[in-house]
């Protein structure tokens, strides 16, 4: 299985993401620059964290017009797994591939520490290796992770089980309904503020993020055994 790590000017978690896939997951991975025309050769697309285009105007606001976004949109329509972490999540929101928007953390401070997350839906291509309701430890590192959407959208998210992760216990950033990660209705685009790529080895303090990537591989293998 071949992963793409999309690199925008200002991405800074791209190397962590690459490392997680190559060395811990043991799958093929390549960096793809923000002006790439096509992502056809890849089976899954990863949008890493960072500060794309300096986060000028709003986080993700300028990145959403990068050339590669056309290819990401196409991959999303084709049903390929697309994971946006942190700034990657913010870009997916700005691009309208996921509903809602991000506000500054309610504390107005940048928060960088490990948090507890609850797996709210394990029937997804990103979470099938977790138990339903499993509490995992994953680091967060953001200043704008205070998720917001209107009531109608929130009801849809709840009804369609699109809320994939919630913060467990204390809500670190004021996020609506303690939302930490959501997916699209089709279930192939996931955005999350916590960094699973930073929790893939004992030396990093947690290996809980690895199962997310393993779930993607499992989904892909099963899909390709069926069609083979």
């Amino acid at each position, binding site marked *: 299985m071949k992963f793409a790590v999309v690199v925008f000017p200002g991405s800074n978690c791209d190397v962590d993401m690459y490392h997680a896939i190559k060395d811990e997951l043991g799958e093929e991975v390549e960096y793809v620059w923000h002006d790439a025309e096509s992502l056809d050769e890849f089976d899954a697309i990863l949008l890493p964290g960072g500060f794309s285009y300096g986060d000028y*105007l*709003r986080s993700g*606001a*300028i990145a959403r*017009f990068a050339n590669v976004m056309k290819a990401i949109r196409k991959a999303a329509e084709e049903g390929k797994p697309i994971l946006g972490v942190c700034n990657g999540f913010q870009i997916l*929101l*700005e691009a309208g591939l996921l*509903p*809602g*928007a991000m*506000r*500054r*953390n*309610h*504390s*107005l401070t940048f928060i960088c520490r490990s948090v507890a997350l609850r797996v709210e839906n394990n029937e997804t291509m990103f979470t099938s290796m977790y138990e339903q309701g499993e509490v995992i430890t994953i680091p967060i590192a953001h200043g704008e992770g*205070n998720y*917001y*959407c*209107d009531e109608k959208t929130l009801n849809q998210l709840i009804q369609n089980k699109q809320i994939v992760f919630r913060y467990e216990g204390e809500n670190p950033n*004021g996020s609506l309904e303690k939302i930490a990660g959501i997916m699209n209705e089709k279930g192939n685009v996931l955005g999350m503020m916590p960094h699973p790529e930073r929790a893939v080895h004992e030396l990093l303090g947690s290996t809980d993020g690895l199962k997310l990537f393993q779930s993607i591989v499992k989904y892909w293998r099963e899909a390709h055994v069926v069609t083979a």
Partner: protein
Amino acid sequence: MYKVKVYVTLRENVLDPQGNAVKQSLHSLSYREVKDVRIGKFMELTIEKSERSIDELVRDMCEKLLANTVIEDYRYEIEEVVAP
């Protein structure tokens, strides 16, 4: 030429943590009269005349990039100026 002033603020129903912090700070400076503070962005655009309607142009820019209409409202003022 046009000088366009664009104001972007968080929507009324969206909590503004920055505005709240500033309001509290004003209160602690004894400006008890302050009921609400909303923090936003102010942008000044200089735009050349073209065959496209300036109003439509600015609205398009706001909708597409300058504001995120999920959480933000925008308004703008257009002033026609003589090109230098």
